[in-house]
């Protein structure tokens, strides 16, 4: 992997980090969970290495092992030539470590936080002023020195955390998911800071991320899944085998959702997801794949597109496990491929309403003097997916909670299925299903007990109830785990259970609050296959997300920042609104950054 490192490693320069056959397992109740299994890799000076993988891949465990906060069960770790197992103290005093939730003191100002960490790290007073100046310039926090850390935005908090980890110019810094929950603008800034550090100070960086699209920004990538390294090398090496296999496809007369579903069932298709008005397909390695697809869909237009990192992830996992590609799950035979179709039968199409199902006019929410949501209006037609896209703190969750009747409104008007759910009679709520961001079912109850509870909550009784539960267990591939405690299930199963509970009563409006955050790309695809099947029978979906890619599944999208809607339209309209001479085919993320920038310019 040294080939792409900017600083050519000399033979005399020792490796910054060496892991040899490192294993670590944890006890969770009676079960033994292998968090890391025989992991080995080497990092050279000046490297920017990304640990990439979905939640539960073992990224944080690896970081903590390197920082000497955990001891490996087996294997050896050498950091800057020091054996971490023997001398964790001296490793800790020569590296910088920023854990997932950096310990900022929210009641101290930016400067006080910085002073505290400088004192803790024992930096000499005469060196401080210079270092502070550098860090503040780098992070653009100069003007916020007097502000309480708790009042900073998510992105600024991460930058301050990074600054605190850097007060003593370490030679190696470990950043554990520094970009989680940070808006794309701040994400770009954080990456710029990382590269400035590498160039100006010769620091080596090991960082972890669950966003696969960030892989392209690393010089070296270690792709992890379930405690093992799947592949490692420079990012191009990952996408290289996919060259010529990725296309954007459209077929006149077939809707993108139907096209995606049909494509996903074909053996020569590895992956099919919706991007704007098209379907993005990854074809299998066989030479005839393209011919087969063109033959199956007469009139199809296939435009070659560059492969992405996520394609290689999906390709590696699906082909690597020898699984038929159309199965929307990587989990062994848990879901029959026909599951989404089966669900279509059990959902009764709602009576076609003439007007919009969700209507919001001049909606405002104030907390004291702070406007969490400021004068927003939109409406959602039946059978459509409407997305609210925005960074943490943009006001999308607040909007969402008001729509669900969980939060009173401060001003304006909202109607869900003709009701304000906060004041409507309880029965009105049985028309909506709700699935929230974190797994919010009862973790110490079994899958069966959870389903029984929610079935009864929605008024299902006796034989109806048991029949519906059986249906749902089958549809969602949960029969095998029906008696297990839901809290101990893998994230993908939890998410399926949550969706199953939300659909128990066949609602005609479904609210999804960041439904796929943290789950791996395969589980996310499986999830959206289900959602698409629901939309096909007329269910209306309202979804919030901060995944730009997920936004592409929506029929209509509203981009939110600081409580306002910046732009609204179909995903392709929003993308095209950001097209410039320099960038004629902007991505959703480009469009997002463009919108935030221009709104800030308006304010300034």
């Amino acid at each position, binding site marked *: 992997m040294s080939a792409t490192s900017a600083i050519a490693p000399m033979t005399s320069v020792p490796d910054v980090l060496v892991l040899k056959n490192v294993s670590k397992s944890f006890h969770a109740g009676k079960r033994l969970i292998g968090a890391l299994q025989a992991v080995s890799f080497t990092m050279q000076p000046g490297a920017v290495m990304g640990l990439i993988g979905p939640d539960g891949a073992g990224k944080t465990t690896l970081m903590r092992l390197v920082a000497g906060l955990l001891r490996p069960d087996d294997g050896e770790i050498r950091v800057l030539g020091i054996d971490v197992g023997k001398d964790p103290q001296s490793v800790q005093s020569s590296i910088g470590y920023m854990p997932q939730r950096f310990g900022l003191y929210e009641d101290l100002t930016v400067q006080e936080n910085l002073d505290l960490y400088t004192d803790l790290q024992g930096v000499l007073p005469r060196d401080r002023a210079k270092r502070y100046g550098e860090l503040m310039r780098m992070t653009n926090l100069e003007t916020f020195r007097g502000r309480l850390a708790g009042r900073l935005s998510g992105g600024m908090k991460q930058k301050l955390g990074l600054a605190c980890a850097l007060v003593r110019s370490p030679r190696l810094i470990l950043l554990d998911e520094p970009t989680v929950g940070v808006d794309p603008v701040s994400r770009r800034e954080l990456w710029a800071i990382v590269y400035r550090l590498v160039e100006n100070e010769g620091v080596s960086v090991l960082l972890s991320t669950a966003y696969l699209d960030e892989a392209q920004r690393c010089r070296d990538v270690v792709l992890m899944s379930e405690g093992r390294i799947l592949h490692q090398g420079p990012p191009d090496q990952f996408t290289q085998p996919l060259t010529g296999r990725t296309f954007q496809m459209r077929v006149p007369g077939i809707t993108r959702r139907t096209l995606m579903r049909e494509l996903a069932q074909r053996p020569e298709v590895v992956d099919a997801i919706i991007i704007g008005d098209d379907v993005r397909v990854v074809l299998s390695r066989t030479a005839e794949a393209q011919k087969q697809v063109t033959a199956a869909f007469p009139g199809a237009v296939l435009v070659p597109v560059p492969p992405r990192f996520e394609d290689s992830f999906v390709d590696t996992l699906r082909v690597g496990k020898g699984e038929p590609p159309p199965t929307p799950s990587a989990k062994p035979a848990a879901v029959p491929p026909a599951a989404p179709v089966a669900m279509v039968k059990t959902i009764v199409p709602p009576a076609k309403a003439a007007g919009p199902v969700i209507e919001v006019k001049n909606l405002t929410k104030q907390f004291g003097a702070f406007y969490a949501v400021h004068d927003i209006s939109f409406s959602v037609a039946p059978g459509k997916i409407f997305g609210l896209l925005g960074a943490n703190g943009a006001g999308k969750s607040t909007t969402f909670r008001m729509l669900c009747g969980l939060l009173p409104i401060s001003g304006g008007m909202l109607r869900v299925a003709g009701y304000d759910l906060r004041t409507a009679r309880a029965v009105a709520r049985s028309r909506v299903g*709700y699935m929230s961001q974190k797994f919010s079912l009862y973790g110490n109850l079994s899958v069966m007990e959870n389903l029984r509870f929610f079935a009864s909550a929605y008024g299902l009784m006796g034989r109806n109830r048991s029949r519906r539960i059986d249906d749902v267990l089958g549809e969602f591939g949960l029969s095998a785990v029906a008696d297990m405690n839901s809290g101990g299930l893998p994230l993908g199963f939890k998410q399926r259970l949550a969706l199953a509970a939300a659909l128990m009563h066949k609602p005609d409006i479904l609210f999804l609050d960041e439904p796929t955050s943290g789950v791996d790309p395969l589980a996310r695809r499986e999830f959206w296959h289900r959602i698409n099947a629901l939309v096909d029978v007329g269910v209306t979906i309202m979804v919030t997300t901060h995944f730009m890619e997920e936004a592409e599944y929506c029929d209509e999208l509203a981009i939110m920042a600081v409580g306002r809607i910046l732009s609204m339209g179909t995903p392709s309209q929003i993308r095209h609104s950001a097209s410039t001479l320099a960038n004629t085919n902007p991505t959703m993320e480009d469009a997002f950054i463009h919108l935030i920038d221009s709104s800030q310019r308006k304010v300034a």
Partner: protein
Amino acid sequence: MAAIMRILALMIKEFLSLLKDKKSRFVIIVPPLVQLLVFGYAATYDLTRVPYAVYNEDTGGAARDLLADFHGSPYFHRVAVITHQQQIAPLIDNRRALVVVHIQRQFSRNLLSGRSGSVQVIVDGRNSNTALIALGYVRDIIVAFNLHWDADHHIAGPPAQLVTRAWFNPNLLSQWFVVPGIVGLLTLVVTMLVTALSVAREREQGTFDQLLVTPFTPVEILLGKALPGFIIGMAEATVMIVAAVWWFDVPLLGNLLTLYAGTVLFVLAAIGVGLAISAISATMQQGLLGAFLFLVPAIILSGFTTPIANMPQWVQWITLADPLRYFMVILRGVFLQATPWHLLVGQMWPMALIAAITLSVATWLFRHRSY
């Protein structure tokens, strides 16, 4: 019908999540039993084996007889016999002896010659309560000695004699007083813990939102949450009452129905307070802290240890909001006095009022607390 099924489903869910979790199962079973036993034996005003020292300067028989009375008493335990004035101070200072009995040189001779002799008693007054009780025991022995002496020497006794009868608790056993109180105290603690965490746990884990978007009405949520607490509270109280009667041998003289009427109202009031605290809390930690902020004053102001009548007037007004205060009266009344129903109505309705207010507040807060 659908509403009843929903409430039932919520109750089953509450019981399952309470009983499936090893920690919460432990909390509702083990600590109350341990506390009942510990408090039942530990919380006592009775002094036994008071450590005392003897400083006898008299060699006569009367002194010997008096000391023999001390020696033979099960309430006293001799730890030292001293011979010098200077030895008294170290004994008391080091807490080796609570009482020093000093018999002066002329004691026997004075008694034999018909005069009165004096016995000096030095008491460690650092704990005033204990000192008073020890002094009372000493006084009893001296009085008994006097009566014996007068009878033996054919002397007319003192003109007025004190004959005491303690009603309701003839032997003044403090267990009879303390154990019924513990029934109320532990019922309160367990019921509060179960309910104060119930909503807070769901808020912390995000399941409460999920519950609020289902067709549950606030009243249904209240019933589903309150009934498990009610069943556990009543079961807990029953175990305690049984233990008080059969383990601690406290007589239960009154009507069991009256006692249970009071218990029902008290448990309802405790559930109301617990659920109201829980409904305000966003996390389990807040819920637990809130429960303890209520429990400690509720116990101190209930008259469990110190009589409410001794408290300053303004504190006495505060105690009116304490449901345990009323239940204490009912418990002790029914156990020891067989107080009839109609005399306890005055204790019943305030608890019902507290329950009504707190349960309504909790119901309102389910939907209106925004966080």
